[in-house]
């Protein structure tokens, strides 16, 4: 099986490299590679053009090794505990569909399959360790290799342990009560460890609660973590974390035996497991492959449509209707619930800060959130031609002009993102006046804020529309650059492509705003010069009208290109 692993890995790497080199014949990937490599060079090796400071990266980590060891060991304990007690954790050992097809019916032992999986995981672990080392920029080669080797061993133990948990949980499920009897030891260890830590904190609670400084609380917790029963419980985790955080080669060598012992223990545990994982792994591989191949699952089939589509009317409305349904079907209560922790954190921070309390803090939060929505919303909301590129063959059979099709496509993201931006602007406008002191200027302040809010509400859709048109223009003009399938191209060249596209979008946005801004600025200046009054809403309206006009013209031009676009020019996403 070891030979098979090396053969498979060599073939995979060789073919992947060949494919990457082949695609460099296309200018988009070659340009992307150059841009991606320049980005890597400046960001990773030169930090934006500044010479590499000696104090950064690993050397800094070495200085805070104590707290890092404590936090790292707690983190590892949390991973181990979660693997045992979390309902969704402990999934079967992941094999690909091809691996299931070739290996599960081959005359290969169960132990050989586990070895294969372990070896296969080494490639990703080694690569991940190397990348982490490069990003943390070791000050010397010596500290670099100790960090990389330490991280590698740490990740290997984690991987082995998670594999062991998966096997043990399979065994528990298969054997029922007798399974619990046979797998009691690791389960008891984890639960016991948590109990010991909890009792250590409870025992030291009088001392902890008397401390007022958060730094002192942390130091006390750190002390608890290395003394007494809690120190013993956290020792295996600390022993692992010590390895990559070693300040010197000598420290690394002294930490190595304990880490290797843990590695060996987990290895023996995994090999001695009697769980039959093949069936569960095969089912898991099938499920993963189906999920990857299929488009995102539609959440609700009975969700009502945004409005009733009349039998007569412009095609743009029909496309808007279709794309709004898309949003409604994919956004679920669960999606919104995922945002709940973020909102709670924001709320708590807001409540704690500022003399105006919750209202003023929320109002202050609305501005960046509105800006975030306006600038990044059009990139995230893809219910337009970017999404429909996969259906272009169908769209091309419709009796609809290209310009009308694009107009219909850009409407949905513009509407959705604008509504979200308006909500933030409205919320900010309502809450902001409360923060104002109730002196004689309050009415003026309110009027100014209302004017600013209206101006922002007018500008927001224009900026969103402009960006959405640019995003759709990319889909029309450079369809091969816009991924149409479920997967995305990977590699430095693909990263460079995305960076180029982002730069292009920002430049185009600036260029589209410039004419309107110049006209509006000139008008505002003249009015101010003559009357002394500062215009807010009118300039915003002018900018919005000019941008809308530009978008109309751009869509007409793009429509002609789309009418001539050959579907065969669009290659499927890799």
């Amino acid at each position, binding site marked *: 099986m070891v030979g098979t692993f090396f053969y498979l890995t060599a073939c995979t790497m060789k073919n992947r490299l060949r494919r990457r080199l082949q695609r460099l014949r296309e200018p988009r990937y070659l340009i992307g590679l150059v841009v991606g490599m320049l980005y890597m060079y400046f960001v990773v090796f030169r930090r934006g053009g500044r010479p590499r400071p000696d104090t950064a990266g690993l050397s800094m980590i070495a200085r805070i090794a104590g707290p890092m060891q404590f936090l790292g060991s707690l983190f590892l304990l949390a991973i181990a505990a979660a693997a045992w007690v979390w309902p969704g954790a402990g999934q079967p050992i992941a094999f690909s569909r091809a691996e299931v097809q070739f290996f599960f019916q081959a005359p290969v032992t169960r132990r050989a399959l586990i070895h294969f999986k372990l070896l296969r995981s080494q490639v990703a672990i080694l690569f991940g360790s190397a990348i982490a080392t490069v990003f943390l920029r070791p000050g010397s080669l010596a500290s670099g290799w100790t960090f990389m080797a330490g991280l590698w061993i740490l990740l290997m133990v984690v991987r082995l342990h998670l594999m062991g948990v998966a096997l043990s949980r399979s065994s528990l499920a298969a054997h029922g009560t007798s399974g619990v009897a046979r797998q009691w030891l690791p389960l008891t260890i984890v639960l016991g460890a948590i109990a010991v830590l909890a009792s250590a904190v409870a025992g030291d609670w009088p001392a902890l609660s008397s401390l007022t400084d958060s730094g002192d609380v942390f130091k006390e917790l750190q002390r608890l973590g290395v003394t007494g029963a809690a120190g013993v419980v956290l020792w295996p985790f600390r022993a692992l974390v010590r390895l990559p955080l070693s300040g010197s080669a000598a420290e690394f060598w002294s930490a190595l035996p304990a880490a290797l012992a843990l590695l060996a223990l987990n290895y023996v545990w995994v090999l001695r497991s009697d769980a039959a994982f093949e069936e569960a792994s095969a089912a898991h591989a099938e499920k993963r492959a189906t999920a990857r191949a*299929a*488009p*995102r*699952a*539609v959440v609700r*089939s*009975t969700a009502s*449509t945004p409005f009733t*589509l*009349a*039998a*007569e*009317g412009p*095609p743009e*409305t*029909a496309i808007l*209707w*279709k794309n709004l*349904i*898309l949003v409604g*079907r*994919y956004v679920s209560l669960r999606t919104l619930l995922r945002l709940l922790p973020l909102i709670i954190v924001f709320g708590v921070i807001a409540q704690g800060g500022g003399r105006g309390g919750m209202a003023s803090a929320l109002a202050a939060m609305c501005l960046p959130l509105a800006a975030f929505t306006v600038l990044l919303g059009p990139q995230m909301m893809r219910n337009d031609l970017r999404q429909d590129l996969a*259906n272009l*063959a*169908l769209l*091309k*059979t*419709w*009796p*609809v*002009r290209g310009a009308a099709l694009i107009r219909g496509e850009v409407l949905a993201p513009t509407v959705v993102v604008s509504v979200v931006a308006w909500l933030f602007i409205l919320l900010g406008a309502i809450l902001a006046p409360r923060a104002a002191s109730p002196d004689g200027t309050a009415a003026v302040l309110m009027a100014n804020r209302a004017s600013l809010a209206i101006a922002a509400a007018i500008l927001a859709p224009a900026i969103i529309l402009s960006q959405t048109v640019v995003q759709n223009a990319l889909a029309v003009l450079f369809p091969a650059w816009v991924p149409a399938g479920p997967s995305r191209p990977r590699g430095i060249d693909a990263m460079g492509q995305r960076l180029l596209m982002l730069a292009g979008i920002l430049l185009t946005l600036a260029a589209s705003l410039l004419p309107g801004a110049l006209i509006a600025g000139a008008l505002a200046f003249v009015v101010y010069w003559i009357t002394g009054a500062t215009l807010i809403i009118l300039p915003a309206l002018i900018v919005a009208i000019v941008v809308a006009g530009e978008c109309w013209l751009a869509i007409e031009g793009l429509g002609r290109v789309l*009418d*001539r*676009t*050959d*579907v*065969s020019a669009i290659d499927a996403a890799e």
Partner: protein
Amino acid sequence: MIDVQHLTKTYGTFKAVDDFSFRVEPGEVVGLIGPNGAGKTSTLRCIVGIQAPSAGTITIGGHDIVKAPVDAKRRLAFMADEPQLFDYLTVMEHLRLTARLYHVRDVESRAKVLIEELTLTGKEQALPAELSRGMKQKVAIACGLLHDPDALLFDEPLTGLDPLGIRHMKETIVSRGRAGATVIVSSHLLHLVEEICTRIVIIDHGVKIADGTLEELKARPELAAAGSSLEQIFLTATAREP
């Protein structure tokens, strides 16, 4: 009426269709057959405007698909071999969307008839993910037939259908032809072509090599020795049979 004149379609240096001409009159059901890679799908995709012809002209009811695509497409329906549906629209929503795009006013009554005809009753609110491949094919066909097109193009129309679906599909194609529609059927199922088509066009390497009714093809001197079945004629015409 579909009129294809000197159609050429190239992909880079590869010529998929080479100076291909044929006409299909109203009421005709033409079978477009050829080996894999012969250029059938490229031809169909050029006719319906999915791909642009590299050279030549295509008119649908007198409207050029390149110069007046909206007018030409309004008269067309293309049923691809792989049904293309929106994952997030129900069956009924697909029909409503199609009705709006093709200006069909009485969508509810027409949809009801088509849903019954294609045995989709009870699936009106189903999403594509909840349908079998055959059912999806039927939805695509319902969308294609909704605006009562003058010209219908079918690419492998029987793929994924059950025996009852196959029977219904054959009846649909024949009845549309009899009602005066212009129909092109591209398929590898030669017995289907033989059964429902009034004329056959054979294409190979992008070039038309035979065009006529089955009787006309049998009567051609170079194919006379092939026998009476379309299969034998096809294999001889495409030189797949020594």
